[in-house]
């Protein structure tokens, strides 16, 4: 082999054990060190926006649940918010609290799931099994509240489809206590472990300045020291009434480096924050209905008449999730629906943080921004040469004519 000749190319993906979803990385390597990074997303594109623009907003809500298996609440919530803005639906206060509670439980399960994945990427399978076992509790609670372990189907335009009644609180409290009891153990296992510290400290550094320039969001930005969190910057649901702070790595380490380790710190302490937020919600929850309009037919009528456009943002577990909706008041389906998930903002950071790192660290660095390709992929590049573009009818026709000539000749 002539691989001694540097640099050589190392493809990772579209399917690779390190990647939980399909994406294609191409690395120019020099020995074990990454010299250049390129990646091609677009392999998990399912045309969800296209499907949505042919359905009414309530149907889209259930599509939103299925954009991503982990942050189903975030997408459904942000879409509901956008449509509520357009149709000027008055959401009952209690619904805001129910939304907040379910969103925070989702954050807990997402962050712990990520922690397990991170441990697996480091080759630390014991921690992976432990984390996923711990995660079960939050999934159980979500099932208790919504009836589903994934694809929760709890959001509705103008509120939520189910209430969280006071007699459900003991079960929620039990889960919160379970996590509180385990949090110290988690901190100890993830942050004080020698091998994890050795692999994660000063790995995949994203400086504060670059994090800002690349417009990163969510835990990735916060781990680099950017104090930004949609829940605080532009409060939605019940977050405006609650008392909590942005989690920055300083909460645990003395200085902010912006490395993989800091991203673990931020996520683990956000679990703690979520527990606190859910407690506050349970305490302050007002009485009342959870749905503005109970009759679907009437709701759909109102939505059909609504026209206008709206942006909505929420803080999904992975960062800011933004939906744009435009409705024209003539048809049921929105004229335009655009989903911009957090990974879309974060993925460009890969090029920055992978450069100069070792092969061994590629999996954990790629995982460290908690990528979600099915959230991100809004377009598929299907050109044979891998160039951006769409195969037009004329192009396909030309190809088939050429092939026929070849076969004849």
């Amino acid at each position, binding site marked *: 082999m002539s691989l001694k000749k540097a640099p050589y*190319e190392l493809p990772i993906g579209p399917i690779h054990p390190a990647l939980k979803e399909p994406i294609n990385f191409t690395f120019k*390597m020099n*020995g074990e060190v990454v010299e250049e990074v390129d990646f091609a997303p677009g392999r998990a594109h399912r045309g969800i926006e296209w499907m949505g623009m042919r359905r009414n907003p309530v149907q889209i809500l259930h599509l939103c649940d299925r954009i991503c298996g982990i942050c189903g609440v975030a997408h459904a919530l942000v879409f509901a918010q956008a449509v509520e803005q357009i149709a000027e639906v008055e959401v009952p206060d209690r619904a805001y609290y129910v939304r907040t509670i379910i969103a925070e439980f989702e954050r807990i399960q997402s962050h712990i799931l990520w922690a397990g994945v991170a441990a697996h990427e480091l*080759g630390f*399978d*014991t921690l992976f099994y432990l984390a996923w076992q711990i995660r079960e509790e939050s999934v159980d609670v979500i099932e208790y509240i919504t009836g589903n372990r994934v694809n929760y189907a709890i959001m509705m335009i103008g509120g939520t489809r189910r209430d969280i009644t006071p007699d459900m609180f003991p079960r929620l409290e039990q889960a919160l206590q379970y996590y509180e009891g385990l949090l110290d153990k988690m901190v100890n296992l993830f942050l004080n472990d020698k091998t994890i510290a*050795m*692999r994660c400290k000063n790995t995949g550094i994203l400086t504060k300045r670059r994090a800002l320039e690349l417009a990163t969001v969510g835990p990735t930005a916060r781990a680099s020291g950017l104090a930004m969190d949609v829940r605080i910057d532009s409060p939605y649901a019940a977050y405006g009434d609650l008392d909590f702070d942005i989690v920055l790595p300083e909460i645990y380490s003395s200085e902010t480096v912006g490395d993989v380790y800091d991203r673990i710190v931020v996520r683990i302490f956000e679990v703690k924050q979520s527990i606190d937020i859910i407690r506050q919600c349970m305490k302050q929850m007002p009485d009342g209905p959870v749905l503005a309009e109970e009759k679907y037919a009437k709701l759909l009528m109102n939505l059909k008449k609504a026209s206008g456009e709206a942006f909505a943002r929420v803080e999904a577990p992975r960062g800011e999730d933004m939906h744009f909706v435009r409705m024209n008041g003539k048809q049921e389906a929105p004229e335009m629906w655009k989903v911009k998930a957090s990974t879309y903002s974060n993925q460009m950071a890969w090029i920055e943080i992978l450069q100069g790192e070792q*092969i*061994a660290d590629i999996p954990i660095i790629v995982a460290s921004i908690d990528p979600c390709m099915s959230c991100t992929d809004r377009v598929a590049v299907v050109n044979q040469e891998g160039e951006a573009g769409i195969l037009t009818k004329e192009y396909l026709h030309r190809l088939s004519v050429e092939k026929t000539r070849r076969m004849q000749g």
Partner: protein
Amino acid sequence: MSSLLVTIAGVILVTIFGIIAGLFLMGVDRICAARMQMRQGPPLIQPFIDIRKLLSKDSQVPANAIPSLFNAAPIVAFASAVTVLFYLPLGSILPVGTPLPMVGEYGDLILIMYLLTVPALAMVAGGFASGSPYASVGAQREMVTMIAYEFPLAIAIIAIAWRLAVAGLVMPFSVNTLAANPIWTVVGPIGIIGCILLLIVLAWVTPAELSRIPCDTPEAETELCGGLLVEYSGRNLALFSLSMAAKLVAMAGLAVLLFLPWNISPLIGISGIGAAGADLVFFLLKVIVVMFFSVTLVRVVMARFRINTVVSLYWGWLTTIGLIGMFLIILDGSMSLGGCLS
């Protein structure tokens, strides 16, 4: 002539024993690891099922591989891993053909050390012959890992053999000498501390030798999707798995030979075939204990190292520990020499 037949029969029996014991050990390892990770784990015979399944599958040879080298590597790896077992005492059963000059007397620790590197070298050759960037990176890493762990391993073996030589034994590198004279009974108190340090070194060399976490960098599932073995399938992969199994017995057997060579039959006072059987079971128990502490426990409580960490760990820390251990043993040996002279 009959002794030659005995040797041949012994070789076949030891090969079968090596395969069965190795796969059994792998099953034990998987169950122990699973229980420590709060899982049920596969049944004990899972490795046997895996091998049977692999043997029934086709071997794919990648288009840009070098077929001859690619197919030869697993055979060489398996043959050399099993050959190590011929030179190791299995309980009270001394190496195959000990009375014969053709195998027994020429085989000693130095030969075992060289033979242990052959499976790894075969894997490197197979990896480079695969024509896959993952396998090539894996092969490079395997070479680096080998260079890293050979030195501490050599220190441990040479220090012990040297001490036995000082004690007046004629053939210190011979496995029979080692089996008959446990190092702990030879050395004084300082030497015991040195031996414990060497035991630590050997325990740490084992996961690297066997490519297990934290030193499984050449295979590294999440990085290289199997590295060296990424292109291997079917019978070739089965042979590599079998050579891994035999190597597991060999490495644990080597640790048993160097540090725990006692047999149980003198204690319970049986002789003949029964004694050999009891000692073999006792040997397996010792091997399981060694494997549990140096493979299973380590792989459950650690994350994978980077390749540069592997090198600095083995050349820095473990070599230092090994040298301190050797120094203590030399000190111990000189003191006993001094005692003899005065």
